């Protein structure tokens, strides 16, 4: 393998694989969403078997369909929240770095404030304020996860602004907008994209936790958090499959996203171009 492909190609291959796997889960879950809602009491509490590889629950719902639909929902929420977070982070980060010292002080203070509150608490509070459900979760996760990326981008922009080639461009009469577009943005893009991808796993896990705790998605929806919290009451009676497979799939999804982000960083990082 080492001789066939260089590190860059391997990274490309791996990220393609991760992206494909995630896409497959998303699409499969989307297609199975009707099947996941079907309750059939004639097949309740079945252990994993050929027909139902993940077993069924106390209302006879197919856990495979439920798990995939739940993950698909999680991923879609993840995409939405990560996108919102990243855009907020980009806007705040650049604004703090370019709009002068006062704005910077205010925005930095905001970042510190949001970072100072424990994440899960903040997500719960915002989700409750937005009336729970899909909107609540998206708002909660999106409005609490932009801070670290914003801080990173701010630092990056601050550094760039005093870089020789930017200063030179300004001296040559380029407008601020032109400088931002032609010189700042290309440099920021790798950081931004990597940050965006790495927001996914956080978003998904926090969506699952907040739903698990009962402040997120409604209990009739096939969400991973709902599945896991429901399974709690059945563990003592030995129905391990209700928590095991969905939990495993959640971890796998999160790990895939982390892998994707990590490889993407390597591909985009100019320093690794020749590896």
């Amino acid at each position, binding site marked *: 393998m080492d001789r066939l492909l260089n590190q860059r190609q391997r990274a490309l291959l791996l990220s393609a694989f991760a992206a494909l796997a995630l896409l497959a889960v998303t699409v499969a879950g989307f297609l199975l969403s009707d099947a996941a809602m079907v*309750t*059939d*009491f004639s097949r*309740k509490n079945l252990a994993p078997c050929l027909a139902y590889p993940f077993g069924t629950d*106390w*209302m006879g719902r197919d856990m495979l369909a439920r798990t995939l639909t739940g993950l698909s929902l999680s991923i879609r929420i993840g995409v939405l929240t990560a996108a919102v977070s990243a855009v907020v982070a980009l806007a705040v980060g650049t604004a703090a770095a370019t709009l002068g010292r006062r704005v910077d002080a205010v925005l930095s203070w905001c970042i510190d404030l949001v970072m100072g509150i424990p994440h*899960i608490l903040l997500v719960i509070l915002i989700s409750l304020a937005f009336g*729970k459900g899909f909107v609540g979760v998206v708002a909660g996760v999106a409005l609490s996860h932009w801070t670290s990326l914003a801080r990173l981008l701010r630092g990056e922009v601050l550094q760039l602004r005093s870089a020789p080639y930017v200063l030179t461009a300004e001296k040559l009469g380029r407008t601020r907008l032109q400088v931002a577009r032609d010189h700042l943005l290309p440099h920021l893009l790798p950081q931004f994209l990597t940050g965006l991808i790495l927001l996914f*796993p*956080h978003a998904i*896990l*926090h969506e*699952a*936790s907040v739903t*698990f*705790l*009962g402040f997120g998605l*409604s*209990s*009739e929806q096939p969400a991973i958090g709902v599945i*896991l*919290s*429901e399974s*709690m*009451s*059945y*563990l*003592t*009676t030995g129905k391990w499959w209700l*928590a095991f497979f969905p939990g495993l799939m959640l*971890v796998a999804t*999160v*790990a895939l996203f*982390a892998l994707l982000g*990590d490889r993407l960083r390597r591909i985009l990082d100019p320093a690794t171009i020749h590896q």
Partner: protein
Amino acid sequence: MKRLLPCLLSLTLIAGCASGGTASTTPAAEHPADEVVVVMGPTSEPEAGFDPAFGWGAGEHVHEPLIQSTLTVTNADLTIGYDLATGMSVSDDGLTWTVTIRDDVSFTDGEPLTAADVAFTYNTVKATSSVNDFTMLSSAEAVDDTTVVFHMTTPYSIWPYTMAIVGIVPEHAYDSATYGSNPIGSGRYTLVQWDRGEQIILEANPDYYGEAPKMKKVTILFMEEDAAFLAVQAGQADLAYTSAVYADQSPTGYSLLSCESVDNRGINLPTEGNPVTADLAVRRAINIGVDREEMIRNVLGGYGTPAYSVCDKLPWYNPASEVAYDPEEAVRLLEEAGWVLGDDGVRVKDGVRAELNILYSTGDSVRQALAADLSNQLAELGIACTTEGVGWDTAYDRALTTPLVWGWGAHTPMELYNIYHTMPDTGTALYSPYANPTVDSYMDQALRCAGLEDSYELWQKAQWDGTTGVTQDGDIPWVWLVNVNHLYWVRDGLQVAEQKIHPHGHGWSIVNNVDQWSFAS
């Protein structure tokens, strides 16, 4: 990945915490014959303590207060018997109740219990109780040491049922700030220890005026359902509540006790505000198109009875409420009313699709499963259903236009009034839109009635009088589905005394007669 690890770990931790619980140990081998350990759910722990003014014994989940005495008690058949009372009478206009009480009763601090304490108790609960309705009471007055007179604002024939849940507190030792955690009463037991969030220890009152309790010490632990089951497996409890989820297990040394209840589950069908349920034919079709036995098998593991009213098997129940499962007739009713089956299996009438969203309270797996089973069954009739979990913060409002899975069942006919009687300010019933002047008038008459016996008949007529009512041939604004049996693991050898039919609330009812329990030697 480094930052993800804490996230993953915290998720695991949260999951682990949810199943925690504590238990005091009582080794099975050397079990004392007059002590018993009972496990109840965490919600059974009275938040405000053992003060009748703050809901102890009363409220939504009625039970005998144990620590205090009551004037009356409900018998096994839910008629009225006497505890402190020796006699009662009501004036012809129904506005004055005179109750005579025993003269040989004292509180556990040695002071005698007199009519003044009774009057004080009722005046106090009227002033402070937010849990129970005492608007019908004007004031209570002690005429002499053993006679108390209740002045009513309006006739209230079922007053004896209220008297069965109000524990009498001592006037000389009542402080609303401390009484809840340090109650003094004259009942069968005294509170000796209360560890909040964990347990309550009751000991028999040595000076009790009635038959001395056989169980000298009662320990009540508060645990989640899974922790309760683990406590049973570990042999740490003598009796523990459980549910159908665990009923197929067989912990050694225990057997399952299934108690009949009026702890019913049913759905409201708003008679206005919802284009589907506003149609009488739809409501009637649902009532006979639901196979209650199948529901009991599927959802309750067989531990339940079909429900046809909010008060099945109680003295004020009208047997005319009962219906037979008849899906063909249900379909005929729908077709006759113009609900035509569409190509997609859903009926349509005048452009309105027969679609219902059935709400249930989030986190209640039984109600969720009932909603799911109901929606499967209704789909066969051509009524398409979705289910949705809601919190109680929004459920009451949404139920005004959408069916919600409710749980009711109390030891008083007042529940019929609360569900079916119109409110004066809105002209419609409180929980789900419904109004029928005839039904209203029967219930008004029942409350004005002089004798309880006569009132039962009027409560029954409110349900169905032969021409109108709230049953299948009447307006059927609510469809009742099942009564959920209350299940308990009982240690072999423990003789649980015969239970009166359990009301809503899977908690204190079981220990109503704990004083009569015993261990077979």
